[in-house]
C-alpha cells in the first residue's frame, strides 16, 4: 500500500502529520522527517510517512525490521521497533510521546505520485453504476468522448480501430497459432504484490538494493500501481498490476536502432538481449514504462557477492537467461513456460500441433496470484478462459487511445459499497 521498499516507517494521516510538522514525500522529495517515538520510557527513531486514509491521531508501525547479521538483504534496512512492544501491550500502546527530531531519512519508494490526475487508467464503478451502464469501462464512457481513430475506422467499415480482439472468428486473424494474451481482473486483484515476487523468482530478476531503488531503477517486470482517489482523509485505494502489455503495434519496436526488440509469431513482444545496445529509446517510448534497464551489472553483483552467493545462484531458474549490464529487459509472458508447453504439445501430437491446451501454460504471476486475477492463454482458442474474459463487457485496454493494441487487457473494477457504512 505504501510502495515503500527496504524500510519500515511510522504511518499516519495527513492531519496528524500536519500537527507533528511532518512533510509528505512526493515527486522529487524522498527525504522524510524522522520521529522519536517514546513508549514507557523507550525511544525509537523512525521515519514518518503520510498515508492517506489512515485514522487520525494514531500511528502505525511495523515490526520485523532493523535486523542485524542476516546478510546483505537485511542489513541496515529499517528500524527495530520491538523495544516499543512490551508484553503488556502487544498490539497497541496508548501512552505515546512523539517528537519530530528534525532529522531527515531517505526512503526508497517505488511510486511517487498517488493520484491518477483525471486519467482513466484504472476504471472502476459501483455495482449500481455497472447495472445502469454495463459498458462503463469503454473509452467512450470513461472520457465521454469518441475513441481517436474511431471515425476513420468507421469510414473503413469497421466498428473501431482494427484490433485482434475484435477479429476472434474473422479471416484476418494472424495465420500463426497460438496467439497469446492476458487479462487482469481488477475486481479480483487485492494489490498484494505476490505477482511481482513470483515473477522475480521465475525470471531471475536481481535484487538491486535500496540505493538503486531510490534512484528509480527497480527491476520488476510486473508492478502493482496503487492510486488513491477522492478525499485525502478517506480515499479509495485502487490497485492495478502492470506487466508488459505485449502491444501488437509496439512503440518500443519501432524506435530500436538495432532491432533488438521484435515480435514473435505467436504475438509476443520479445527482447533479444544479445542484440541490445542499450540506447534506452524503447523504454522512453513505452507509454506503460514497463521496460527495465540494467544500469549496472546487477546480476553479477547479486550472484557473486553477499554472505552466501552459492545459495542465490542455486535459486536461479536455469531456463531463463541472466542479463548483462547495459541491456533492456521486461516481461516475456514467461516465454520459457510457453515454449515448454509448445514443445510438449508438439511431441504429444507427433508434430501436428503447437497449440497447448488451455490451462497448460500458466505464467508465474498467474500461478502465484492468490485471487486468480490473472488469465493467460491462447486467443485463437475460442473456448480458452482468456478469450472468454476478453469478451466480458468490463474488458478495457490501458491507454487504448494510443492505438498500441495491447495483448494484455483489464477487467474494470466493481465495488458494492454498503450505503449504511459509506
Amino acid at each position: 500500500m505504501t510502495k515503500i521498499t527496504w524500510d519500515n516507517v511510522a504511518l499516519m494521516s495527513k492531519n496528524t502529520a500536519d500537527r507533528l510538522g511532518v512533510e509528505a514525500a512526493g515527486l522529487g522529495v524522498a527525504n522524510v522527517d524522522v520521529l522519536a517515538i517514546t513508549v514507557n520510557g523507550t525511544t525509537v527513531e523512525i521515519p514518518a510517512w503520510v498515508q492517506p486514509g489512515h485514522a487520525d491521531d494514531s500511528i502505525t508501525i511495523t515490526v520485523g525490521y532493523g535486523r542485524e547479521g542476516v546478510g546483505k538483504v537485511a542489513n541496515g534496512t529499517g528500524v527495530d521497533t520491538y523495544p516499543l512492544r512490551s508484553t503488556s501491550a502487544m498490539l497497541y500502546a496508548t501512552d505515546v510521546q512523539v517528537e519530530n527530531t528534525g532529522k531527515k531519512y531517505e526512503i526508497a519508494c517505488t511510486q511517487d505520485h498517488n493520484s491518477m490526475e483525471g486519467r482513466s487508467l484504472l476504471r472502476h464503478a459501483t455495482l449500481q453504476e455497472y447495472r445502469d451502464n454495463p459498458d462503463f469501462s469503454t473509452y467512450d464512457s470513461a472520457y465521454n468522448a469518441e475513441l481517436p481513430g474511431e471515425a476513420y475506422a468507421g469510414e473503413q467499415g469497421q466498428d473501431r480501430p482494427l484490433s485482434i480482439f475484435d477479429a476472434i472468428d474473422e479471416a484476418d486473424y494472424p495465420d500463426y497459432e497460438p496467439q497469446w494474451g492476458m487479462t487482469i481482473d481488477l475486481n479480483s486483484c487485492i494489490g498484494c504484490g505476490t505477482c511481482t515476487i513470483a515473477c522475480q523468482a521465475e525470471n531471475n530478476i536481481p535484487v538491486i538494493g535500496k540505493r538503486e531503488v531510490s534512484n528509480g531503477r527497480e527491476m520488476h517486470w510486473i508492478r502493482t500501481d496503487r492510486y488513491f482517489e477522492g478525499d485525502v482523509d478517506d480515499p479509495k485505494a485502487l490497485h492495478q498490476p502492470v506487466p508488459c502489455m505485449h502491444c501488437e503495434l509496439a512503440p518500443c519496436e519501432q524506435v530500436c536502432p538495432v532491432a533488438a526488440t521484435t515480435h514473435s509469431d505467436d504475438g509476443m513482444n520479445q527482447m533479444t538481449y544479445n542484440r541490445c545496445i542499450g540506447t534506452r529509446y524503447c523504454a522512453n517510448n513505452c507509454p506503460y514504462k514497463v521496460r527495465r534497464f540494467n544500469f549496472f551489472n546487477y546480476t553479477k553483483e547479486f550472484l557473486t557477492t553477499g554472505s552466501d552467493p552459492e545459495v542465490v545462484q542455486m535459486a536461479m531458474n536455469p531456463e531463463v537467461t541472466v542479463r548483462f549490464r547495459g541491456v533492456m529487459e521486461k516481461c516475456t509472458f514467461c516465454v520459457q513456460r510457453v515454449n515448454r508447453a509448445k514443445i510438449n504439445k508438439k511431441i504429444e501430437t507427433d508434430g501436428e500441433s503447437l497449440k497447448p491446451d488451455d490451462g497448460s501454460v500458466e505464467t508465474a504471476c498467474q500461478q502465484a496470484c492468490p485471487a486468480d486475477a490473472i488469465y493467460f492463454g491462447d486467443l485463437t482458442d475460442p473456448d480458452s478462459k482468456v478469450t472468454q474474459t476478453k469478451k466480458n463487457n468490463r474488458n478495457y485496454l490501458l491507454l487504448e487511445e494510443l492505438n498500441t493494441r495491447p495483448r494484455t487487457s483489464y477487467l474494470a473494477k466493481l465495488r458494492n459499497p454498503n450505503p449504511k457504512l459509506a
Partner: protein
Amino acid sequence: MSTDYKYVPEPALVKGDHTFGSITDIIAKTPLSPTPKLWYLAFGISNLLLITLLGAVGYLIWEGIGIWGLNNPAGWGWAIINFVWWVGIGHAGTLISAILFLFRQGWRTAINRFAEAMTIFAVMCAGFFPAIHVGPIWVIYWVFPVPNSMAIWPNFSSPLLWDVFAVSTYFTVSLLFWYVGLVPDFATLRDKAKSKVAKISYGIAALGWTGSFRNWWNYEKAYMILAGLATPLVLSVHTIVSFDFAVSMIPGWHSTIFPPYFVAGAIYSGFAMVLTLMIIARKIYGLEDIMNIDIREKMNLVMMVTGNLVAFAYLCEGFIAWYSGYIYEQGIFWLYATGPYAWGFYILMFCNVVTPQFLWSRKIRRNVALTFVISIIVNIGMWFERFMIAVASLATDFMPSNWDYFSPTFWDIITYIGTFGLFFTFFLLFLRYLPMVAIAEVKGVMPQADPHNYDDETKEFVKPKAEPAVVDQQTV
C-alpha cells in the same frame, strides 16, 4: 513631390585604414609568430578538462550507465541534452558559411572561418554523447549498416539510426567545406612562413595552390557546390535530431512543430556561441577591424529573429496542447509550469523569451558587454530547453504511477564540463595554427576588390566615374 534621394552607402565591412597587405598581416601574424604564454595557459586548462572527460568516460565504460542519474521513466538525461545542445551550436557555422554565402551576405566573411571551426568541434562534442550513452559500447558499430555475421540490418525505422546518418553526413560535409575554404589561405601562410616545418606543413595542406586563374576558377566552383550541399544540411540535421523526440509518442515530444522549432533554436544558440567566442578572440588577436561592431549587430539581429521564432514555438505548443484536447499533452504543459521541474521552465522562459526582447534596442545590440552577457544567457536557456524536453517530458508521462524525479550525479556534470575541454582543445589549436579569418574572402568584400570603382584617394567605393567604354567593332 521631392525626388531628392541621397545615396547612403552601406557601412564598410572592414573598418580602419586597411590595404590587402595589412589584412594578410593581421590575420597571418598569429599562426606564424611564437606561441603566446596566455595560449599555453588556456590550452593547459582545456587539456585538463579533456583528461577529466576521458577519465569520466573511462569510468562510465568500466562501471555502466548507472553512474549517471538516469532512472526508469527518464532513460535519457544529460547525455542527450548535451548532444542536442552541441549539435545546435554547430548550426550557426553552416548557416553563416553556406546559406549566407548563397545569399551573398558579405559580412559573413568576417566570421565564417571562425564559425565553421566552431561547428566542426561542436559536432565532435555532440557526436561523442550518443556514442557513450549506450549500454555495451563495444558493439556500437551495430548501428551502422555494415555486413555482419549475424546477417541483420539495423532498424531503418528508428530515428536514432537516422541520427547516425544525419550527424555523420553533417560532420563530413562541414569538414570538407571548411578545408576547401582554407586552401588559398594555407597557400598564403606557406608563402609567408619562415620556418621550414611551417613551410612544408602549410605547403602540403595548400595542395599546390598557385593562385592562378584556373585555381581560383576551380576553387569558386567547388566552394559554391559545397555551399549548395551544406545548405540543406543546416535544416536537415536538426530536423532529424528533433525526430528523436517528435517521432516517439511521449507527450511533450510527439509534436509536429519540432523540426522548425529545433532549427530556429539551433541557429539561435549557435549565433550566441559564435558571439561569445568572437568577442573574446577579436580582442586578444587584435581583429576588431574585421570582427567589428556592425558584424556583431547583424548577428544580434539574427539572434533576435530566431529567439522570437523559438518563443513563438513555445506559444504554439501551449496553444496546441489546449486546442487538441489531448489530456496527456495538456498534463505535461501544466506540469512544466507547476510541476517538479517548474524551476527549469522559468529559467527557460527568462532566457529564451525575455532575453531576446532586449535585442530590439539598437543600443544593446551595439554594446559589447551586454551582447556578451546575452549570448551566454541564450546558451544557458537553450540547454534548459533541451532539459525540459528530454527530462521533464519523460519523467512525467502517461501514467502518474511511473512518475519519478531525475537528478544529475557528479558524473553527469563532469562529463558535460569535460566536453568543453574537448571543444576548447581543438578550438585553441585552430586559433593557434590556422588563419581564423578567411583572408581571401575578407579581401573580396573590401572596396579595393572592385578595381573599376575604387577611389584611391578617398579609399571608398564610388559610383562609376565614366560610362563604360564602348568599342566600336567596325573601326577596329
